[in-house]
């Protein structure tokens, strides 16, 4: 009897539910929910991207040709909110959902029903957020940072705040789930210091999320009560302080930007060893560097506020702390280069994106170092130099890592190879046009163009036009990405092997491609030589 019961369950586990509603809406399966997250993220990537196209079209030449200034501000605000909370973060959660259980040898996420809830909150949160564009008075137009008193002038503040609350709840639940999975569900022998770096990066990121999302919720709730319930947290007429908001916001905001880059570090630390056919250099240093960056992220927030008139002692502290981040970040970059050194390199699409990540993210890091220097930041602050900086770390950093991960694991997910030719076309278009798009923005900022302006003096015209052309072409290139994904998921005839990549190491590659609906129902036996980073005793 017992045996029969087990057998029935076993059968259940290998088949996805048949009905569409049953399978996708009621799913508790980490792979299906991961897929949902990734589809959602891709959708938001295109929605947020279309806002960016509006921005770049208006900035194509001096004079206002397309939109009113207020709508332009709505676009910059919504572009940021959608890309940060809708595209980048859900993409990482989706990748974590798909890969973490398979990488640590767990059958599923620790809390499958919460997993379902944390995903299904998101479409509602974003429907709410995006609906504000159609409300009378328009959406929030005070920038994604929503500094008061300006943000309090928006008539749709309550919608935005509630949407952010929902996103925060979703993120916190996702983070709890990931921590619970990693700490409790690892296969025997998968010690913490044997985990793939991607899993490590997510473990640390999840703690960051739990630490800071409530802070954001608090900040925006105070905005809400200031606007509707007569409080004066940020209202100087009632004894409040507008700068207090900025402190609270950036106490969330700075860890938040690392939330968007640490999992990217993890991805790159998987991809580069695979295509170098060589274990990652300095595994423990890599893990320690991620942990150091995460710690430092809590004590650097005021470097976003160097122009608010902080006392000199505070500025010096935040400058030194910020500069310190360059050390562990540098260690990571050096270790990736050292991983490639002496390897046996091949350049499939995931590796191309990973190499572009290392180079272009480092350029973003360089401008970050320049921004950390307070007297220079008095000039850089709130200019296009900053815009160039954070797009180098978020587009060629986070987004390129997500693209790398997509090409890297898509054959595992679908069981079919993507089209390598079109993958490479996508890569080369992206990497060329993204630089045409963002590199000239450094010059614009240095020449004195403030950010978040819909129109500008003719002195800024040339580089803005170049940047816009790059923007349109970069945007169009992403349609290739969509095409490659759709082709791979539905039309590709080329079967993927279990290992997919010659140099791939780690438990996820021991499963079939695609993996069974429920994998590792029996914990796998971990062989140290199978692990992605190789020699764990180093």
């Amino acid at each position: 009897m017992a045996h029969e019961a087990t057998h029935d369950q076993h059968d259940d586990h290998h088949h996805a539910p048949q009905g569409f509603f049953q399978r996708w809406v009621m799913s508790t399966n980490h792979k299906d929910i991961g897929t949902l997250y990734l589809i959602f993220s891709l959708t938001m990537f295109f929605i947020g991207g279309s806002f960016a196209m509006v921005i770049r079209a208006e900035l194509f030449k001096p004079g206002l040709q397309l939109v009113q200034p207020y709508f332009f501000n709505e676009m910059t605000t919504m572009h940021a909110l959608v890309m940060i909370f809708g595209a980048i973060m859900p993409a990482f959660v989706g990748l974590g959902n798909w890969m973490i259980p398979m990488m640590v040898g767990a059958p599923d996420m620790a809390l499958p029903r919460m997993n379902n809830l944390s995903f299904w909150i998101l479409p509602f949160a974003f429907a709410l957020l995006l609906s504000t564009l159609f409300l009378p008075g328009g959406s929030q137009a005070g920038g994604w940072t929503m500094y008061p008193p300006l943000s309090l002038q928006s008539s749709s503040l309550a919608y935005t705040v509630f949407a952010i609350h929902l996103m925060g709840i979703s993120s916190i639940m996702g983070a709890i789930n990931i921590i619970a999975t990693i700490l409790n569900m690892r296969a025997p022998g998968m010690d913490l210091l044997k985990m793939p770096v991607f899993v490590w990066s997510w473990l640390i990121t999840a703690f960051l999320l739990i630490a800071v999302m409530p802070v954001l919720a608090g900040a925006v709730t105070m905005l809400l009560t200031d606007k509707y319930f007569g409080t004066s947290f940020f209202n100087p007429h009632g004894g409040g302080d507008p700068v207090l908001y900025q402190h609270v916001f950036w106490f969330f905001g700075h860890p938040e930007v690392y939330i968007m880059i640490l999992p990217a570090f993890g991805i790159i630390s998987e991809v580069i060893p695979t295509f170098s056919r060589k274990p990652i250099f300095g595994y423990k240093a890599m893990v320690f560097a991620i942990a150091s960056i995460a710690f430092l992220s809590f004590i650097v927030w005021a470097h976003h506020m160097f122009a608010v008139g902080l006392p000199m002692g505070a500025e010096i502290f935040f400058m030194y702390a910020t500069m310190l981040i360059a050390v562990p970040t540098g260690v990571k970059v050096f270790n990736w280069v050292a991983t490639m050194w002496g390897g046996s390199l091949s350049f499939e699409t995931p590796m191309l994106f990973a190499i572009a990540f290392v180079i272009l993210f480092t350029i973003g890091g360089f401008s970050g170092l320049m921004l950390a220097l307070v007297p220079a930041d008095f000039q850089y602050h709130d200019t296009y130099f900053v815009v160039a900086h954070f797009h180098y770390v978020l587009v060629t950093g986070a987004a390129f890592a997500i693209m790398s991960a997509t090409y890297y694991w898509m054959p595992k997910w679908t069981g079919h190879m993507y089209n390598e030719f079109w993958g490479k076309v996508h890569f080369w278009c992206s990497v060329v046009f993204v630089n045409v798009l963002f590199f000239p923005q450094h010059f614009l900022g240095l020449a004195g163009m403030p950010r978040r302006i819909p129109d500008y003096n003719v002195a800024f015209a040339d580089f803005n036009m170049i940047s816009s052309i790059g923007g349109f072409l970069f945007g169009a290139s992403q349609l290739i990405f969509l095409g490659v994904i759709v082709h791979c998921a539905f039309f590709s005839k080329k079967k993927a092997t279990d290992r997919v990549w010659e140099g791939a190491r780690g438990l996820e590659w021991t499963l079939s491609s695609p993996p069974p609906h429920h994998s590792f129902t029996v914990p796998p036996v971990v062989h140290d030589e199978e692990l992605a980073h190789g020699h764990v005793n180093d």
Partner: protein
Amino acid sequence: MTSGSIRTDGTGPDGHRIRDGRSSRGGMAGIRRAVVASTAIVLALCAGLAQADPHPWQLNMGRGATTWSGEPYFLNNVALGVCVVIGVLVFGAMFIAMFRFRKSRGAVAEKWSHNTMVEIIWTTIPVIILMTLAWLATDGMRTFYDTTGSQMTVKVTGYQWKWRYDYVDYLGKPVSKVGYMSKLDALSDKTRQLDSGLDPYAVKTGDENTYLLNVDKPLVLPIHTKIRFVITSEDVIHSWWMPSFGWKMDAIPGIINSAWTNINAAGTYRGQCAELCGQDHGFMPIVVKAVSKEDFAKWLAAQEQANAPAPAAPAAAATAAAPATAQVVAPDAGGHG
């Protein structure tokens, strides 16, 4: 003063400023000389242009026009030089690896994944570089925060979407009732309307295009004078940014920030609001007209005289509150006075 002569005043000394700035840097501490030398190529490429900022195809930060504005410029160049050198080394190593260790060239992967000595070296060297940069930056901050010994005080107030300038004191004496609104000039304002059909390239003050960088009444300041600014706002947060002064400072309601400048050369300097402050954030420029001490004293006396008995003068400031209305002052006047 005609607009033509203002422009000559502005661009003429600008070229000298750049050359002066570079030679005076040469006399500073040895470490500075060394890093300046290492960035000489970048300087020659990006900063050797003797044009008013911003100018088309401008690649680098300007040297600025005040006693302090060289600090951010210098730090910018040093940090850029450091980044370029590190970038060449790291990316160079990467490209060598990509060509030497290709599988298609028969490269066989080695097994090592650890080297303590190398890791110590590439942790220590960045720390030393960072300490150098931090020392230079801290030096620049010490001087920035020292607003003592100022000979003049100007109060700057941000409004949606214009600036107000009030002269508080000059050479130890209080200034009475000299203050006015300063907002986007009428021609820029007309041109910048959606589908205005007007050409931004046609918005000129003399030969200089001043589209969105011109105001009806500029802030008039004396040169060679340590001027303290007290900066605040009446509604939302703005940021008063004059690139030629080398800094921006947020204008925050309920808070009074301070900063200082000491302008080296007469001329017209242009900047913009740098903190998103609503729909017309891009349309509240800042123009400073720096004049000699003698001219400034005359101008200030004339203003005080004009404002003291006549009740009509504050009314002129009040009309400035309504945007896009007829201008009292000639719109193409790059300077006032």
